[in-house]
Structures are given as C-alpha cells and as structure tokens.
C-alpha cells in the first residue's frame, strides 16, 4: 500500500471575511502526480504556500511524510522542493551561481549535483549566463532545477509551464514523468494548460472559491460520463435532425462546421452508427473521444 506523502485536514485560511481556503481535506499518496485545477484566485497557490510553511492556516493541520507538528514538520519540509509563483532567482548571479546559493541552503557540497540538475532541465550550455538575461522559459527551468537540487521526495509546482515554449512544455512533461518513474518523486502540480496536465496527472483535485469541490483519479476521468462520441459529417443539419427526431438525443454539442459531439451517456456508439447508416447519412468519421479535463472542469464549476 502506498504511503501518504501529504494530507490536509480541515485547512482553512481567512483574510478578514474572505475565505481563501475553506475546510480543505485532501491526501496525496506516494508516486502520485496530483493535478490541481482551479481558476486564478481559487486558492491553489495559498494551499501550496501552506504546505511550504509560508502561510499559517487559520484552521486545520497538514501532515507531510507522516509528520505534522512543529520541528518534525520543519524536518519533513527539508524533503520537499517548491516552485511557487515566479522562480526565486538572483538576477546578478548566473544559473550555476544561483544553484550554488541554494545548494548551501540545503547543506549540499556536491558540485556534481548542480551539473546533474542543470543537465536535467537542459541549461548546461547557459549556466554561465546571468539569469537577468534568461528568457521566462529558462527561468522556469532553472526554478525547477532549484526545486530538484536536494533530490526531494515531494515536489510542489505552481504553474511550472508558464512561459515555456511548446518544446519546453513537452520536455518538462518528460522530466516530471521520469522523476516519478525513476526516483519515486510525488508531485503536486497546478497549471492552466489543462490538456498538458491531463497527460501527466494520475489524480485531479478541482478547487473553486477556496473549496475542494471534487477529486477524481485519471482512470475515473477517462471512464466518466464525460467521454463523448465524435461524429464527423458534412451534413450536420441532417445529422442533428436524426439525433433529435429518430434517436431522441438533445444533449449534443456542435463543435465545428462538420463535427457533433454526443455524450457517451446519452447514446451507444453502435446504435448511432446503425441509425446513421439506415438513414443514409454520409459519415466521414465516428469515434470515442476521451473526456477532456477542460470540459470536465467547466461542467463542474458550471461554466
């Protein structure tokens, strides 16, 4: 059985009358990539700051690697790596010097480790460049290198894909999945690029207005009612007529000039194909489309 790396019990954070977090209960088990989804200001960063010890919760408690009290919790924090909001880098130092600074914070004396993380995030060639001259994407990568420096067991990443180019996003995805597979690192990650999050996360938590409204496993999401049947046809009006009048299906979306999406819960793929053939509809394609995290989230918050 996998051990719990992080657990929040009834975490609330209030600023005056405003609740940034409201009674959050969640658990992340070893080896999970927990995708944290929510709009700006929903409380994602606040919870990450609570985990990192930057924010004192108004109520509730957290447990990190089985430790929840004072000094023990501080000891457990030595095993987490964080990248919260923008990367914390000194602009007058180069990439390597920034890592040197943080390696001292962690009491590391192994220069080899700096080489390793620089290579892992693909910044070996630019390590002597001042970080003030880095692009946003390079800063994000160096921020990730800083978070990985002390080989943490638990990574807390807040929007790590911000500013990365498409190649950088793919690279970041590979790095994170490799860390989980090869080193057993557990990750809590938030991102607004939901399609990307969907590719790596094993579990999702949806937060809205400070409340954790739903948690779902990646497999559950795939098997959920949100899976759709995509029908591609040049005769969309005729297809809609068939759907409404022959099959009595009204919960479909016209998602393009030639495409209609029908929730899998409303129809059966075989039945649809049979009826369309019987009606002589020109079908260019029909297939099952996995639930999109984006749609799932929008449905959940009623957007």
């Amino acid at each position, binding site marked *: 059985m996998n051990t719990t790396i992080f657990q929040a019990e009834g975490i609330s954070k209030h600023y005056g009358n405003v609740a940034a977090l409201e009674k959050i209960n969640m658990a992340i088990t070893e080896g999970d990539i927990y995708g944290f989804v929510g709009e700006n200001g929903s409380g994602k960063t606040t919870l990450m*700051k609570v985990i*990192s*010890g*930057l*924010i*004192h919760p108004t109520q509730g408690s957290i447990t990190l690697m089985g430790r929840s009290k004072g000094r023990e919790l*501080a*000891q*457990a*924090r*030595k095993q*987490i790596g*964080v990248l*919260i*909001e*923008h*990367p*914390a*880098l*000194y*602009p*007058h*130092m180069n990439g390597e*010097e920034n890592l*040197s*600074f*943080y390696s*001292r*914070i*962690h*009491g590391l004396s192994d220069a080899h480790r700096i080489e390793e993380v620089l290579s892992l995030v693909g910044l070996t060639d630019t390590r002597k460049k001042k970080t003030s001259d880095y692009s946003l994407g390079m800063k994000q990568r160096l921020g990730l290198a*800083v978070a990985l420096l*002390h080989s943490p067991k638990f990574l*807390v990443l807040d929007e790590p894909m911000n500013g990365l180019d498409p190649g950088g996003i793919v690279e970041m995805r590979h790095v994170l999945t490799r860390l989980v597979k090869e080193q057993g690192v557990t990750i809590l990650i938030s991102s607004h690029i939901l399609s990307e999050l969907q590719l790596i996360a094993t579990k999702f938590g949806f937060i809205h207005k400070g409340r954790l409204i739903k948690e779902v496993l990646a497999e559950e999401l795939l098997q959920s009612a949100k899976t759709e049947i995509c029908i591609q046809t040049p005769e969309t009006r005729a297809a809609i007529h068939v759907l409404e009048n022959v099959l009595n299906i009204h919960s479909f979306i016209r998602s393009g000039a030639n495409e209609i999406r029908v929730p899998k819960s409303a129809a059966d793929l075989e039945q649809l194909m049979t009826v369309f053939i019987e009606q002589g509809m020109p079908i260019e394609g029909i297939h099952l489309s996995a639930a999109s995290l984006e749609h799932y989230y929008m449905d959940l918050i009623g957007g």
Partner: protein
Amino acid sequence: MRNFLKAQAYFIKKDTMFRGISLMFLVASAVLAFWVGGKNNFEVINPAQPLILLTQLSLFLYFVIPTYVCFFATEGYEYGSIKLVLASGQSRFAYITGKYISVLNFIFVWLIQFFGVYYVCYMAAALFTGSAIGNDGLKTDMLQIIRVLGLNVLYLSAYAVLILMVGIFIRRTASAVVATLLVIFGDFIFSGYCREASSLLLRELSGYTLTTQIMKFSGVYVVNSQQVVLSGMKSVVEVLVIPLVIIVICMSITYFSFGRRDIHA
C-alpha cells in the same frame, strides 16, 4: 542555521552592491588618510594617533551601512528567495537570526577595512615623507580607539537591527530604503535641531538619540559652543544602555511579527 549563514555569505560575496560599497570604503579611507594626514604633514605623535583623527569621521559609516542593511534585509522578498529558504525547513527565528549575524559580519569587515586601509595608507605616507613617529600618550590613545571602535560596532548593530525591523515590516526594497533614510536623517535632525530647542521635552529627547551618543563618543558633539564628551558614570551607562535597549526591543518585535506573518514574496 549554519547552512543559511553559508548561503548568506555566498550571496554577499556575489552581491554587486556589497562589492561597490566595499570599493567605496576602500577609496574613501585611502583619500581620508591623505587628506587628514596632509593637513598636519603626516605627523604621528604616537602609532595610535592617526586613528584618533579618523574616529571623529566615523559618523560617515552610519549613512552607508544602514542603507545596505536595508537592501540586505529585503532581498529575500525582492527576489523571492525567502520562500525557498522557509520552505526548506529553516525556521523563521533562524531566518531573522541568520540575517542579523550576517549583518554583524559585514559591519565588522567594513570597520576593519575602513580603519585598516586608512591606517596603512597614513603610516605608509608618514614613512615615505620621513615624518617622525613618536610615542607620547600611546596608552591613552589606544584605550580611546578601542572604546570608540567597540562603541561603533555596538551602535552600528543597533542601527542594523532597527533597519532590519523596518525592512522586514515593509518588505518592498524601494519603500524600505525611503523609510531607512527617514530613520537615519530623522535621528540626525532630531539630534542636531532639537539640541537647542526651547521645549524641554525635545531637548531631553535629543539627548537620547543614537546620533547624539555617536557624536559624543566620537568627540564631535557640541552644545552652546561647548564640546560634550563622555564623562562620568551616567553618560557611560547611557551610551551603553541606549543601543542595547534598541537591540532588545527591535529584535523582539521582529521575531514576534515575522513569526506570525504570512509570506507573500
């Protein structure tokens, strides 16, 4: 804590502002050696005497060092490193204590550099110009120098903790620098302008400012054309107690407020 101190030392070593100020102190102390020495033909009554002349100019340090302390106190917020330091399991108590110890370190380094370079330049010029080096009153001057250097360390430490508190409260470097300058010049103005004010309260307060004490032990405090120096047990106790009270109060407030505060860097 030790790791944090090592990281802070590394930051200071790489900091361009620290390097710039060190260079400025280097040049200033060398220029002062030739300027002060040139006025009296590099006369050396005793080997300690050149430093006596410089101690009267040590007020200069109080305008530069606290300003750097302000930058140093707020750098964690400015660059966001405070997030990673605290997230790495360092306690807030260790963060503040580490910052303060680092400040004391560079105060010590700068004092040694300022007085050391001045002394070396002055004595080298005296030897070069063939000035006679006497030995009159060496013991008295040595004691005076040790006392003034010690008090400078104490007063710079008091200023540092005051500015550290201001910086940690304000967080934003630009605003904290403005507040620091207000504190420094406010104390300076209070000491100077209120010294001869008609209000008894203002006169009393003026007598207890940090600048007044610094000027007293540096031998440049003048009231009604009379030089006022440290004399008697009361003034010695005052000069020691005032900075110690400031250190205790400001440090307690900083520990307390920083310990409870949320970090948004």
